[in-house]
């Protein structure tokens, strides 16, 4: 019992630290990717290639004056960012990152807790997250904030239906509600993943579209459409209260990417079995990245790149070497595949932000109710029919 509590506390600290750092750097990645899509360097001044920019941003946000408008509904105004960030953090608790690991004689899962209703828990928590935005919009006592909050609650209610229906069909195929067992049922190779094995490619597309709407990302970021609503529901917020909404948005992105990975892309399972050398894939990827960085370090475009890019190249090659060590492979490889899949989906999020324009609001609602919901329903019906006939 005591060991259980200690291990859980350690896992809690590690996950919280890694997650918050990852969220800070996700913003750096987003700014960099969008900058490169628009052919400009992006953050470049703070640290090599702007790598210390998140740190600078955090210091700026923490030390800024937290302005309290006089006309707001005080308790709800303060409560809203708190609930947004809490609900965003809570769902990470049930998400598994990999199989069991053995540390100092103790064997534990790379997951905070496994609920046998894990999928429902994530849905429940995400449905509570909408209050943060809706109440923030209302409590700000400002017409733009109110409209942003109203839009967001309507949008999230509407898109929650296709999202839930899209989640149900892979659950039918895998026949479980526990996220850990869900991954176990997709083990083997890419052909066993739910996206291909159960023919759930349509469910995957519906899930991703609805997830974009649930996280208020472009092309569904109507709640904060700046040309109509200033900054939407967080117009009146400043300093850390403003930052909590930002953190909540990025945390939700990480959560839905992790859910998509677990439900459709086989979680931490490699895309092809280990006997065909899937264990070498991370080494090859990091090795190529290291060599490219070394090449650009040898032929630098800027003066400092000679040192920074060479250092990155050496670091990448070292990481490539670490993946070859047999004692860390058992837990590092699953973690690599899980993070690689999440990273791909997050990259798609950013890519689409740099590509697509925003919907008009009536188009957004019409799309959810007249197209996405019937398609999700049809997909669920066909899936249940096939599952009933096969089993």
């Amino acid at each position, binding site marked *: 019992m005591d060991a259980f509590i200690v291990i859980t506390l350690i896992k809690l600290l590690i996950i919280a630290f890694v997650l918050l750092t990852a969220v800070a750097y996700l913003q750096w990645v987003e700014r960099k990717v969008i900058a490169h899509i628009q052919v400009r360097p992006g953050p470049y001044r703070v640290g090599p290639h702007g790598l210390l920019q998140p740190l600078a941003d955090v210091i700026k946000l923490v030390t800024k004056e937290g302005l309290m408008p006089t006309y707001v509904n005080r308790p709800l105004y303060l409560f809203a960012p708190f609930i947004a960030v809490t609900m965003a953090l809570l769902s990470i608790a049930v998400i598994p990152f990999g199989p069991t690991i053995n540390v100092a004689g103790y064997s534990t899962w790379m997951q905070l807790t496994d609920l046998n209703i894990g999928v429902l828990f994530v849905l429940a928590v995400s449905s509570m997250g909408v209050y943060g935005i809706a*109440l923030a919009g209302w409590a700000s006592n400002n017409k733009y904030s109110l409209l942003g909050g109203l839009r967001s609650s309507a949008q999230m209610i509407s898109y929650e239906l296709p999202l839930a229906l899209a989640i149900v069909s892979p659950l039918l195929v895998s026949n479980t*509600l526990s996220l850990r067992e869900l991954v176990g049922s997709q083990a083997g190779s890419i052909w066993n993943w739910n996206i291909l094995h159960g023919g759930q490619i349509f469910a995957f597309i519906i899930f991703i579209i609805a997830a974009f709407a649930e996280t208020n990302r472009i092309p569904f970021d109507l709640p904060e459409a700046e040309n109509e609503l200033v900054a939407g529901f967080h117009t009146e917020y400043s300093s850390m209260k403003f930052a909590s909404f930002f953190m909540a948005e990025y945390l939700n992105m990480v959560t839905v990417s992790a859910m998509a990975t677990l439900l459709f892309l086989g979680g931490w399972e490699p895309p092809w079995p280990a006997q065909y050398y899937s264990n070498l894939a991370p080494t090859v990827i990091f090795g190529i990245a290291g060599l490219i960085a070394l090449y650009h370090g040898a032929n630098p475009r800027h003066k400092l790149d000679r040192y920074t890019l060479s250092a990155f190249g050496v670091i990448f090659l070292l990481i490539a070497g670490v993946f070859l060590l047999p004692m860390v492979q058992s837990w590092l490889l699953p973690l690599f595949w899980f993070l690689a899949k999440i990273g791909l989906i997050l990259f798609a999020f950013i890519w689409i932000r740099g590509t697509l324009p925003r919907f008009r609001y009536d188009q957004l609602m019409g799309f959810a109710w007249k197209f996405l919901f019937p398609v999700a329903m049809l997909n669920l019906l066909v899936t249940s029919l096939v599952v009933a006939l096969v089993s």
Partner: protein
Amino acid sequence: MDVILFLIFAIIAVVAAINVVVQTHPISSAVSLIGVMGSLAILYLLLGAEFIAAAQVIVYAGAVMVLFVFVIMLLNAGAEAKRGRSLVVQLLGVPVLLALLGLLAYFVERAFPDSVKVHFGGFTGGSAQAVGRALFTTYLLPFEVTSLLILVAIVGAIVLGRKELD
């Protein structure tokens, strides 16, 4: 541990429920009601009904209350003015409330005199599988009738909404 958690969330549920009535602003009442729903979900969880707990949060605390808050925000309802209480309410309010609670406690005690006290962890039929099996075998008829009733309600809502439009 279970008892401590039960006491914490039972107290939160009761305080939030009282707050629903005491608050003058509809939004504050709605937020308190969300608190009640959430604490009820945790009480279900403590009793071993994990599926019902999740459904409680998704359906009541999530969907239904979001709609409530949405409608209140759309109608832009303001805070209610507190009116002076009448003499009867001032004099008899608390005694009548206490009498009602006493009567309730008395009848519950009478109806279930030797019932087993609730013990945590004794119930294991709360998984999604067990609930689904019960719904589609033992309670199939009520379940289907309920879904028909909901369908009727939806059709009725559309008919009423059409009338407004024409």
